[in-house]
């Protein structure tokens, strides 16, 4: 059984505020929300180092999560339950309607309830094991958020928590869609939640993952002209020449997935259709870094597109994409069309020749040409963004890239913000200038979309590569 799956509800809470409209406004403006200062009193941080993060306003969750409920939950559980309720409200579904075994819950988290884990371990190490709080322990498990969502609306279907760093959000979206498509569930609450505790922040900083204050001449000049620099110079700059790390963020997004038929029957207008999903791994990546497997990941992306080509309503013929929207490739060739054009991006893929094109690539190429928007998980790391650019070039293999949106410049590095942004992009929401981006990196051969008006996309590819080697992609269609 394979049923068409759509997104009909979106709940989100991040530094941009609570609710779909808040995220939509932030993305349209291309503005980074005001950052918070990390608590460095635990003694985990080195000096100097990153000081900022993007925090969801926990007090703003109250309309969705009364304090009497919230007090029994870790921060990720609070964020996730509130986001799930927002998603149901947006779809005009009462929680009672999703009660039962037909509702699955699939949630991704990178580090789980890290503040509770940290507090518990600290108790054990400093006060002794008998001081360990059962409350902290109960809510320290990675699946606490998924479990609390299920409890909050009596969702008795499959309940999964996926941990795959930056690729987790798309893996969860694919897994949730698979549950509904295969008929194992009629609907799924799918999302991503991340918490950045001081220890997590410090460790990410020690690994060199976080953006640090390093104002260059251009930034100093911009500051003199009154331009706001988010995070006092700690700015996530996806695909920018000056990028030096990500801005860690805390928040949650939960989507309601259901069959297209059920949505239309109930009069719910879908935000996006989920047409395909897939994932791969780059074994050359170190445990907390990025690998050199761009060509191999590019081939994996092509295999995914070939696999879901029938769902994309393309037939394998090489048809011309309607250009004139301003593609994202810079410095590379423009419009290779023929199957024999070969790799020509000018960007080394890192692990040998890229894809090569054969007759059997027809469906993949047709799919590539039909995709008119990319939402990239690039967040501002040196190596991660470079790999992302190389993978896209390897997959497109000389064909012009469609406009590339980079929402993590606005949302910071957390899967939920990315998940919400890609659904909004599929729904045709406007995206402003790429936050943090100012100077193209000639080594990447692509620049994010500049914020000019774009027609609503028909087919959108979301791409997210994770530190450690995982990669995930999802293809969304316009509603």
């Amino acid at each position, binding site marked *: 059984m394979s049923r068409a799956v759509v997104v009909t509800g979106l709940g989100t809470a991040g530094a941009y505020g609570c609710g779909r409209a808040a995220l939509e406004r932030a993305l349209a403006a291309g503005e980074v929300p005001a950052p918070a200062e990390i608590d460095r009193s635990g003694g985990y941080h080195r000096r100097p180092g990153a000081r900022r993060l993007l925090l969801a306003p926990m007090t703003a969750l109250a309309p969705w999560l009364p304090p009497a409920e919230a007090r029994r939950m870790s921060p990720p559980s609070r964020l996730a339950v509130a986001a799930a309720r927002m998603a149901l409200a947006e779809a005009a579904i009462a929680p009672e309607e999703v009660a039962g075994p037909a509702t699955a819950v699939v949630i991704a988290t990178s580090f789980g309830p890290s503040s509770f884990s940290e507090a518990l371990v600290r108790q054990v190490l400093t006060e002794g094991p008998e001081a360990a709080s059962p409350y902290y322990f109960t809510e320290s498990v990675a699946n606490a958020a998924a479990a609390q969502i*299920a409890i909050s609306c009596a969702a008795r279907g*499959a309940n999964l928590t996926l941990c795959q760093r930056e690729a987790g959000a798309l893996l969860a979206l694919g897994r949730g869609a698979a549950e509904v498509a295969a008929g194992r569930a009629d609907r799924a609450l799918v999302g991503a939640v991340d918490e950045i505790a001081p220890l997590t922040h410090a460790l990410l900083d020690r690994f060199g993952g976080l953006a640090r204050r390093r104002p260059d001449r251009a930034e100093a000049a911009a500051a003199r002209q009154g331009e706001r620099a988010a995070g006092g110079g700690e700015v996530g700059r996806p695909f920018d020449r000056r990028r030096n790390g990500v801005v860690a963020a805390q928040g949650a997004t939960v989507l309601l997935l259901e069959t297209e038929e059920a949505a239309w029957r109930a009069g719910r207008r879908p935000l996006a259709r989920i047409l395909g999903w897939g994932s791969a*791994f780059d074994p050359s990546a170190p445990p907390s870094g990025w690998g050199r497997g761009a060509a191999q990941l590019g*081939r994996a992306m092509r295999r995914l597109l070939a696999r879901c080509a029938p769902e994309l309503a393309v037939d394998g013929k090489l048809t011309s994409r309607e250009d004139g929207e301003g593609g994202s490739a810079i410095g590379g060739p423009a419009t290779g069309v023929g199957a024999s054009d070969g790799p020509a991006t000018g960007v080394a893929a890192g692990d040998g020749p890229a894809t090569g094109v054969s007759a059997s690539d027809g469906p993949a190429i047709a799919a590539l040409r039909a995709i008119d928007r990319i939402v990239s998980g690039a967040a501002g790391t040196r190596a991660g963004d470079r790999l992302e650019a190389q993978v896209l070039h390897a997959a497109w293999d000389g064909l012009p890239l469609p406009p590339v949106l980079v929402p993590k410049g606005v949302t910071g590095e957390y899967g939920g913000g990315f998940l919400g942004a890609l659904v909004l992009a599929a729904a045709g929401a406007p995206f402003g200038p790429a936050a943090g981006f100012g100077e193209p990196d000639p080594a990447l051969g692509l620049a994010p979309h500049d914020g000019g008006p774009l027609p609503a996309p028909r087919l959108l590819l979301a791409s997210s590569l994770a530190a450690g080697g995982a990669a995930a992609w999802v293809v969304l269609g316009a509603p």
Partner: protein
Amino acid sequence: VVSGVGAVSGFGWGVEALWQGLHAGATAIRRLRRFDPTPHRTHLAAEVPLPAPAGAPGGGDRRLSLADRFALAAAVEALAAAGLAPPDRPRPAAERARQPAARESVEQGIGEGAVGVYFGSSTGGMWESEGFLAGLLGGPRRTLHTLAAQQVNGPGDAVARALGVTGPVATVSSACASGALAIGAALAALRTGEIEVALAGGADSLCQLTYAGFNALRAVDEGPCRPFQSGRGGMSVGEGAAVLVLEPLARALARGVTPLAVLAGAGATCDAHHMTAPEPGGAGAALAIAAALADAGLGPGDIDFVNAHGTGTPLNDTAEWRALAEVFGARAASLPVTATKAGVGHLLGSSGALEAVVTVLSLARGELHPVPRGAAAVDPACPVALVVDRPLRLPAARAAVSTSLAFGGANAALVLARPAATAA
């Protein structure tokens, strides 16, 4: 089908050590030595014997956590059993320095991207994280590399990295159901044709967080755990890893490999009841078993034994019995039940995978292991037909159910069958 299995447990490194320990009615639950248990309320655990045997994979890579090493050893053993082990080729020094645990890609002869890794883990490298945090709090300092693989996805990633896997890699972290849910995810990916071969399993190592946490909940028995028995006082914490190689029957046969079992179906549900307590009537668990049976195209009458979650906590065992009674009706009281945790403790995120391996071995060898010698009488509140005293010969067993019931109410059930049973 399941074409190979591997395991690391309190009984030692390898499937044979596991089976021999269980078959003999022994227990690996002993006084804890990894860290000082004296300040804890209880003092027992089922620890994997260390150091690892000479030649165990990953031994030279300082970035691997203990859980990663368990995972890698189980994966390499399972691949070898399936006739798919990549050679441990001589590699240039620079590559060895970068990836000490790496071997030739397991995908050779299968296809790029055609192998997937689906792993369950509850705490990943938490043991190493605790050491690092202790250093920050004034203890002996640890270098940053000890944290490189501290993430929950560490074990699955480590397996994929070492074996050159380029297909999907996904880590499920749904507490004690993680391993079984990961196996279910692998089955789904095989059925859709997304992959040709799956390495599915789980890994977790002992750490102070879980040891102190379960003690804080008063969920740990002061003695070795006694699933389904009168007077039981809770679980025993264990550690280890287990991996199953899953692939289509034709692929295994083409290689001349006789399948050990068929992974016939998987089911998953949630109690949606309480963060730590199971739904008392076992309704969620019953639904998971029923879903797995439906997925397998089998009925309750086709099941000849159950490898129970059987933690030994009063609430879990009672709820699980009610679930079995709901699904199997009058047969429930006579359906043979094994409880592997009595021998190797609770492997948390990898328990479902290890118990799936034990279920495979039970089907392949036609025998169910007993709970350790000296078992008390079965609790009338959960009157399962527990295998006690000696192994139970079941050479004609057709199919079995393995259950995993977790924190947060996540339930998973797997149906495994003898190859002949499904071929018929």
